[in-house]
C-alpha cells in the first residue's frame, strides 16, 4: 500500500514538473513570431542571440519566436501561411519585395501602430522612407541598407605604387588604378587583374544598375515598361563591356564569381558591405571606398532589409509585434556589424556597438554612400523581373554582352523584350 502511495506521489510530482513550466510560460509570456531570410549558420545564430537579448530585456513578457528560411522558401511560406490564415506576426525581407505582398493583401499598413509605439524615422534618408510607403501608407519599416561599393587590397595597391589613402573617385582615376594593379608575365599572361568584375550574376546586374543610374537612365519608362533600350542604358552596358575588353578585368570563373579578389589575384572588387567580415577574417589588408563615379552623377546600387506586419485574424498582437520591430530597429547595430549591413536609424548608427567597433572604419564608406544609393524599382512583379535564376532576361543579356556573344544593342533590345513580356503577362 505504502509502495503504491509513493508511486502515485512520484508520478504526480513528475507530471507537475512537466506541466508547470508550460503553464507559467502560457500565463506570463506572449509570443511574437518572426520569419526572416538571414540564413547561413553565422547569421541565424547571431540573430538568435539578438532575439534572446530582447526576450530577456523586455518587460512586457514578449518572446520572439524566429523562423529562418532561405529567401525563395520564405516567399513561398509567407504566401502559404497567409492563405492558411496563420502567417508570422512579423516578416523581415527586402523593401523591393513589399509591394507585391501588400497588393495581395498579406501585409498591414502600420502608420497608426508606428505612432502608438512612437517610432522615430527622423534622419532616415527620404528616398528610403518613400520606398517604405505604398499609396502614402507605411507597409514596412527599413532597418538597413547594403549598398555596393569599392573594396581594394591595400597590400597590392601599395605594391603597385598607389596611395591606399586616396582611393579612386572617378572613372579616370579608377582606370589608372586598375591598369597599375594589372600585372602581366613574360608570356603575356595576366597574373593579377586590376578589377574582379564578375560575369553577370547578381553582382553583374547590380553593377549595370549602378552604371545605368550614373549615366542618368532608369529601368522603367513612364509607360511602366522597360526603358533599357535608352541611350543611357547603352552607355552603361557598353562601359561594362569596355572594362571587360580592356584587359584589366578578370571576369571571374563562372557566373557571379569574385574569387580572384578573394585569392589576391585582383586588386579591386565592387560588392556590398556583407563581404567585410569574411575578407577581414581571411586576414586581408582591406580598404573600402565609396563607389567611383564612372558616369555623369554619383549613384550606387543598394537594397534594404525591412520589417513588416502581416494581416492576422485578430488584431490583439499587432501592438506587441510593433514593439518588437521598434526594439529591433533601435538595436540594429549588432546585426549590422556582424552581418555586414548599414543601419538606417540614426539611433542605431550612434550606438557605441557600431561607432566603437574595430570594423567601423571599413563600414564608413558604406554609411557615406547612403545618400547616393538607388534601389531597383519596387514594382509588384519585382521578384520575377529581378530574379536571379536562369530565366532572367537581365542576367542572360548582361552575360551575353560581356562574353561578346551579343552586341550591346542586341543585348539591350532582348533585355527590354524579356522584361516587357514579364510585365505584360497577366
Amino acid at each position: 500500500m505504502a509502495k503504491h502511495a509513493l508511486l502515485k506521489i512520484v508520478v504526480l510530482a513528475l507530471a507537475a514538473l512537466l506541466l508547470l513550466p508550460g503553464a507559467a510560460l502560457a500565463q506570463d509570456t506572449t509570443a511574437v513570431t518572426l520569419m526572416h531570410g538571414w540564413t547561413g549558420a553565422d547569421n541565424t545564430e547571431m540573430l538568435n542571440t539578438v532575439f534572446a537579448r530582447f526576450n530577456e530585456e523586455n518587460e512586457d513578457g514578449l518572446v520572439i519566436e524566429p523562423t529562418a528560411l532561405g529567401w525563395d522558401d520564405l516567399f513561398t511560406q509567407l504566401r502559404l501561411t497567409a492563405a492558411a490564415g496563420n502567417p508570422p506576426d512579423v516578416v523581415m525581407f527586402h523593401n523591393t519585395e513589399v509591394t507585391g505582398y501588400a497588393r495581395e493583401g498579406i501585409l498591414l499598413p502600420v502608420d497608426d501602430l508606428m505612432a502608438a509605439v512612437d517610432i522615430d524615422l527622423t534622419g532616415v534618408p527620404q528616398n528610403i522612407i518613400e520606398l517604405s510607403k505604398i499609396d502614402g501608407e507605411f507597409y514596412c519599416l527599413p532597418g538597413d541598407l547594403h549598398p555596393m561599393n569599392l573594396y581594394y587590397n591595400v597590400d597590392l595597391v601599395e605594391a603597385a605604387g598607389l596611395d591606399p589613402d586616396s582611393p579612386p573617385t572617378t572613372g579616370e582615376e579608377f582606370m589608372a588604378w586598375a591598369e597599375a594593379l594589372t600585372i602581366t608575365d613574360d608570356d603575356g599572361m595576366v597574373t593579377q587583374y586590376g578589377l574582379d568584375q564578375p560575369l553577370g550574376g547578381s553582382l553583374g546586374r547590380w553593377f549595370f544598375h549602378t552604371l545605368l543610374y550614373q549615366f542618368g537612365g532608369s529601368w522603367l519608362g513612364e509607360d511602366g515598361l522597360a526603358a533599357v533600350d535608352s541611350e543611357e542604358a547603352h552607355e552603361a552596358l557598353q562601359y561594362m563591356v569596355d572594362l571587360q575588353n580592356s584587359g584589366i578585368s578578370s571576369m571571374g570563373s563562372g557566373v557571379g564569381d569574385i574569387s580572384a579578389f578573394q585569392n589576391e589575384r585582383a586588386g579591386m572588387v565592387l560588392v556590398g558591405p556583407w563581404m567585410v567580415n569574411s575578407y577581414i577574417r581571411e586576414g586581408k589588408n582591406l580598404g573600402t571606398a565609396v563607389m567611383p563615379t564612372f558616369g555623369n552623377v554619383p549613384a550606387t546600387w543598394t537594397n534594404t532589409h525591412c520589417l513588416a506586419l502581416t494581416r492576422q485574424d485578430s488584431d490583439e498582437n499587432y501592438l506587441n509585434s510593433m514593439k518588437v520591430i521598434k526594439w529591433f530597429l533601435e538595436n540594429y547595430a549588432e546585426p549590422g556589424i556582424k552581418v555586414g549591413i548599414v543601419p538606417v536609424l540614426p539611433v542605431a548608427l550612434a550606438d557605441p556597438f557600431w561607432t566603437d567597433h574595430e570594423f567601423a572604419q571599413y563600414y564608413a564608406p558604406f554609411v557615406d554612400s547612403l545618400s547616393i544609393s538607388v534601389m531597383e524599382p519596387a514594382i509588384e512583379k519585382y521578384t520575377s523581373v529581378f530574379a536571379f535564376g536562369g530565366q532572367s532576361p537581365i542576367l542572360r543579356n548582361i552575360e551575353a554582352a560581356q562574353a561578346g556573344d551579343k552586341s550591346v544593342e542586341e543585348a539591350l533590345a532582348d533585355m527590354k523584350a524579356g522584361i516587357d513580356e514579364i510585365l505584360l503577362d497577366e
Partner: protein
Amino acid sequence: MSSPAKNKDKRATSPWISIKNDLIAYAFMAPYLFLFVVFLLLPAIVGVYASFTKWGIIGQPKWVGLKNYNKLINSDIFIESLQNTLYFVVLAAIPLIVLGLLLALLVNQKLRGRNIARAIVFLPHVVSVAAVGIIFQWILERSSGLLNYYLGLLGVNPPINWLGDPDSAMPAIAITTIWWTVNGNMIIYLAGLQDIPEDLYEAAKIDGAGRWQELRYVTIPMLMPVNAFVIPLTVIACWRVFGQVFVMTRGGPQGSTFTVAQFIYETAFVNFNMGLASAAGVILMLITLSFTVIQLRAMKVI
C-alpha cells in the same frame, strides 16, 4: 477419412485463408501505400489538374483549359530548357550507364582490397548535392582549379572557363553528375553480376570462351533485367537534373545550363505561376514516360 495431404490442400485453397493472406500482405504494404498515395499519387493528380488552371498558390485555381500548354509550346525559354536538358541527358546518361557497368566489373574482380575499393567508389554518393556543387566549383575554377592545373601540365592553355563559358558549362555539370552518381549504378550492376550463376562461366570456359566472349555472351545478356532497371532510372534522373545546376550555375551562363526542372522551380516558386509550372511538370513526365517505354520496348522487356 481424408488423408493429411488432402487436408493440407483444403487449407491452402480455403477462401478464408486466402483472404487472410491477402490482408496480411496489404497490412505490410499499407505504410508504404499510405505514403505513396499522400505524397506522390495525390499531388501528381492535383498537379495534372493544376496544369489546366491559373493559380498563384493562394486563392482558388481558375480553369484556363489548354492555355498553359499553349504558352509553353510558344515559349522560347521553355523550349531552350528542354533542349538543354536533352543535351545533359546525352552527356551524362550514357557515361553513367557504361561507367557504372565498367566500375562494377572492376570491383567484382577477386582482387585484394576490393571491399575498400568498393567503399571508396561509393563514397561520393553520400555527399549532399550542395557540397558536391561547391567542391566542383573549386575543382573547375578557371585560374586556380585542380582540373585546369592538371590540364595545364598537359599543355592545355589558356585555361578553360568551365562554368563561365556557355559551351563548357553543361559538360562541366555532366562531369560533376557522373562523379557523384555513377556509383549508384555500379552498386546495382554489382548486385546483378553477383546473381549470375558461376556455372555459366564454367560452361563458357569449357566451350573455349575468352574474357571478352564471356562478357559478350554471358555477362551482358544476363544483365538485361538489370539494364531494364538501370537505364530508364538513369535517363529519368538525368531529365530531372536540378540541384547541381542550381548550386553551380543557376542556369547560366546565358541560360546554357537552364533545365526543365529549374524552369518548373522558378515558375512555381519565384513567379508563383503554379498552373504553368504544373503544365511543364506534366510535359516532363510525358517525356520521361515516353523515353522509358521506348527503351523497355527496344530491350523487349514490354
